[in-house]
């Protein structure tokens, strides 16, 4: 099966998953206690019985379940996720505004974790009983056991009271003026601590995985072949072995992506990062159901897209992988 066919198949399947997410969304709202019309009315600033009745008719809440579901799905197909009365903005607009900040955080942390984790794993595999190996072991214990918000708060305490070189809250400094480049640098400056915090959890996992994977690959016959034909050790590790060892790391990194988003929700809260996580928290506290449902939908969409990208990457790394 060709690459394009695989992609088409994966995209089709991804769309099915998205519909499933929407149905789940809808089902959750329907079985949740409380009347949606009441909530909407409450968001609009209170209303009497006749207004609530009108809301019921307007939103089709008096129609049968499947009609409501169908209307919901067809609206989402046009990227209409409803209206947030709390923010007085369409949910899609609201989310698209916050999405870039979250994507920046999530992707930069994931890339940082994959690259440093892999490097650490390779170094550790060179000396299975050496110092780097020990570091990887400790790191993986720490990465699993340390609550991400705790790590973040410790970093904040460290960088506020001891080394005040990084900003610990927000994404931009409004007092910074200048062209695009200066603004971008400012965002990067703000990004460092949240990114490192989020990466710390996954860095531990990937380094341990890369170490195990490298150790296995280094014992393979083709590594011996490479040495037998005089390939320099550096190239044995980083070309012949690493390319083969990357498969498991990429697979797991893909699977972990939804966990990275979960982690980002907490990290955003710790560092007041103005992304989807912060929005989600605010809308939950404000009982803004359309927004929180929209966020769940959009984050699933991101995970699905990343899964497809992971599949493609895996096929590029390893020619043996057939469409699956």
């Amino acid at each position, binding site marked *: 099966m060709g690459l394009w066919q695989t992609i088409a198949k994966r995209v089709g399947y991804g769309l099915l998953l998205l519909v499933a997410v929407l149905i789940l969304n809808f089902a959750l709202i329907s079985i949740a206690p409380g009347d949606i019309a009441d909530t909407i009315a409450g968001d609009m600033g209170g209303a009497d019985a006749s207004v609530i009745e009108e809301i019921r008719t307007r939103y089709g809440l008096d129609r049968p379940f499947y009609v409501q579901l169908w209307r919901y799905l067809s609206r989402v197909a046009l990227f209409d996720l409803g209206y947030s009365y709390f923010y007085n903005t369409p949910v899609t607009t609201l989310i698209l505004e916050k999405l870039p900040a979250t994507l920046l955080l999530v992707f930069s942390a994931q890339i940082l974790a994959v690259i440093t984790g892999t490097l650490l794993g390779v170094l550790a595999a060179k000396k299975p009983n050496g110092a780097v190996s020990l570091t990887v072991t400790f790191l993986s214990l720490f990465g699993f056991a340390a609550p991400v*918000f705790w790590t973040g708060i410790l970093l904040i305490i460290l960088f506020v009271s001891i080394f005040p070189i990084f900003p610990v809250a927000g994404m931009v400094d409004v007092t910074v003026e200048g062209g695009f480049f200066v603004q971008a640098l400012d965002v990067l400056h703000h990004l460092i601590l949240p990114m490192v915090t989020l990466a710390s959890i996954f860095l531990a996992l990937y380094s341990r995985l890369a170490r195990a994977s490298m150790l296995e690959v280094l014992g393979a016959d083709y590594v011996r072949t490479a040495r037998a034909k005089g390939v320099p050790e550096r190239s044995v590790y980083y070309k012949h072995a690493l390319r083969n060892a990357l498969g498991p790391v990429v697979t797991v990194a893909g*699977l972990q992506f939804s966990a990275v988003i979960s982690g980002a929700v907490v990290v955003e809260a710790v560092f007041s990062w103005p992304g989807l996580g912060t929005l989600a928290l605010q809308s939950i506290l404000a009982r803004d159901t359309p927004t929180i449902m929209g966020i769940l939908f959009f984050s699933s969409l991101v995970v699905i897209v990343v*899964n497809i990208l992971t599949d493609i990457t895996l096929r590029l790394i390893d020619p043996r992988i057939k469409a699956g």
Partner: protein
Amino acid sequence: MAKTTASAQTADQESPELKITHPLSEMAAMFFRNYAAVAGLVLLVFIIIFTFLGPYIHTTDPFEMVWAPFTVPGEEGFLLGTDYLGRDILAAMMVGGQVSMAIGLAAAVISVVIGVTVGAFAGYYGGVIEEALMRFTEFFQVLPTLLFSMVIVALFGASLLTVTLAIGVVSWTAVARVTRSEFLRIRELEYVAAARSGSARDGYLIFRVILPNALPPIIVQANLMVGSAILFEAALSFLGLSDPNTMSWGQVIGSNRPYILDAGFAVAIPGFAIFLTVLAISLIGDGLNDALNPKLRQR
């Protein structure tokens, strides 16, 4: 070839000393040979004693304001200081630990029950059932677990029950995958094939024949689930999505969060408690893995 001969020889030489031991005591011996795991076990026992017996010795009410806010640990007789409301943090650590661990355990049980059921049926029946169940699992993997549980808590209200359910319901996918792959492996073994070709009923085969043999990796996974459920609960409480009337470690952190620059300890201490507990659990997990998977051990 030379190696097998060597080990066979050694086994022969040792055989007079070999006693027939119960498999459980053999596993225990294997577990106790892993010093890190033993340290984890000791640590966990200590934490359990601290949280469940501690309140009988240190009887301060964790909800009551006992002194000025943000008393530094060690001063005025407060070993761990006081929080933003002047409440004793030591007392909060004890009572909060009970809740954290109870929720962690209960949520892990829920996710293991769901995961084992889904994985067992998928692995045992195969075909369309497996396909459907694994797609279902994949669907749950796509949803970011924390966001999903936040939605559940937001819609159904924050109580101990909903928080526990919300954690359990979103985090069973790993257990399902492990269970399924074990079932796929075991159902091909000869004794299962023999039982299947006989008149044994599916339920009997799944729960009495295959499941007991699939348990080792499930136990290891379940142990880790307790750790991640504790972390999960802490994250939810930190975000302010826990039962406001109960105290848990995460909740102490969440409520003191606005004041981290004035009193970092009020946040660092409960965070450290969570860290130690989960660390202990994962060390135990490594030991269990060694003890329960003899094949891995020999590598």
